[in-house]
């Protein structure tokens, strides 16, 4: 197994272009959290032409709704949620310059087409490894939609967040390729 690729946010087109499906990466820098409810609000703002709580250009969104932090802790458990629920919204976010998404599970053909067209990448993190992943989150701050509780938008600072490239900007799909490789003939 090759060594993981270290990436720092925000991403340029060149950062994204060099990534291929199956690459293991360690992401550091600022990332933003959002689930379905927050995405619905973001896309509504975009449709109305209003400003977003953060500029998505070059940024990475992590699909997560963490558990509450215990006293003295930055965050609770914080593993990925299933990504297809964000499929209706992700192409719009990618058009706004979003360069990366972290989640788990399949994406739609529309999302995969947007990754290709606008040079963006979808990473899979290990679902159910919320305690492990929380250790690489160094700060967390709610920046919008506090009323959504676990679904609020948080600005996270992460160090060496482990993920794997599932859909690259070249049309690759690790879920399809991996399955093909190991399915009994």
């Amino acid at each position, binding site marked *: 197994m090759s060594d993981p690729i270290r990436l720092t946010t925000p991403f340029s087109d060149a950062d994204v272009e060099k990534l291929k499906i199956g690459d293991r990466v360690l992401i550091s820098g600022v990332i933003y959290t959002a689930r379905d409810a927050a995405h619905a609000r973001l896309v509504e703002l975009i449709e109305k032409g209003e400003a977003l709580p953060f500029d998505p250009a070059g940024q990475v969104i992590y699909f997560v709704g963490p558990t509450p932090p215990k006293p003295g802790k930055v965050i609770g458990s914080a593993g990925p949620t299933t990504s297809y629920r964000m499929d209706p919204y992700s192409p719009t976010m990618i058009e706004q310059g979003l360069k990366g998404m972290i989640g788990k*599970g399949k994406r739609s053909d529309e999302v995969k087409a947007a990754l290709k067209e606008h040079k963006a990448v979808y990473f899979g993190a290990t679902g*159910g490894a919320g305690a492990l992943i929380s250790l690489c989150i160094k700060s967390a701050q709610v920046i919008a939609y506090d009323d959504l509780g676990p679904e609020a938008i948080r600005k996270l600072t992460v160090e060496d967040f482990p993920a794997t490239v599932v859909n690259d900007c070249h049309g690759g799909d690790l879920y399809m390729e991996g399955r093909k490789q*190991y399915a009994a003939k």
Partner: protein
Amino acid sequence: MRELDVSLITQALKRMAIEANTELGDDVLCAFDKALAIEPSDTGRDVLEQLKLNASIASENKMPLCQDTGVAVVFAEVGQDLHFVGGDLNEAIDEGVRQGYAEGYLRKSIVRDPLNRVNTGDNTPAIIHITVVPGDKLKLTLAPKGGGSENMSGIAMLKPADGVEGVKAFVLECVSVAGPNPCPPIIVGVGVGGTFEIAALLAKKSLLRPVGEHNSDPYYAALEAELQEEVNKLGIGPMGMGGVTTSLGVHIEYHPCHIASLPVAVNIQCHSARHKEVEL
């Protein structure tokens, strides 16, 4: 008639909510080790190692294994010679969930109504299944159930002519369509027979068994083993990234049904297969 104060139920559920969400059962941990011994995919083994490490971090730090601490599914087997005192049984269960999810810093994942979607803020109400059994004891089981795997579940009202082949095809289709979404390796809960609602309930109940423990009926045990092998031939693998460990176990429960019917339900459980039991 034995009396049981419902405050004891609240206390028990509070403790179980925290323990179930922070301590992964030995049955699941053993299943990870077995899978690691045979999984040929590097990525797949890496995922399984992460899951083992995650379980030890969660246990040491008393923090949730997964951020989705679930909807609180509670099974209560009530002895018919038991009399509850000191309050409402259902409210006592909800209060235990409320206290456990607050004190355990667990996520509140329940919305008041499915279309207007405002969070109840305390993870209540629990989903409560009560059955009356002989005796004067109360057996409580709490199974926090995550949304990601629950969403990949399905039900089919097959024709009797579809038979066992129809059941197998439906189970394999559910797992295949779910692919990476429900956080494989999964446990596949199958309910066959009964009525529309009983098939679904049996599928959920089958998930309460220790992972990989077979049905006591040899016919259904053999069917479980066969389906387990077929599911793992799909190639989905840990987190869907390819491999031979798609399922840690297929559990089937069955029930008598109408001469015209063959209901089959599949309830998918992620690898964070959490449940706790207590007898009061």
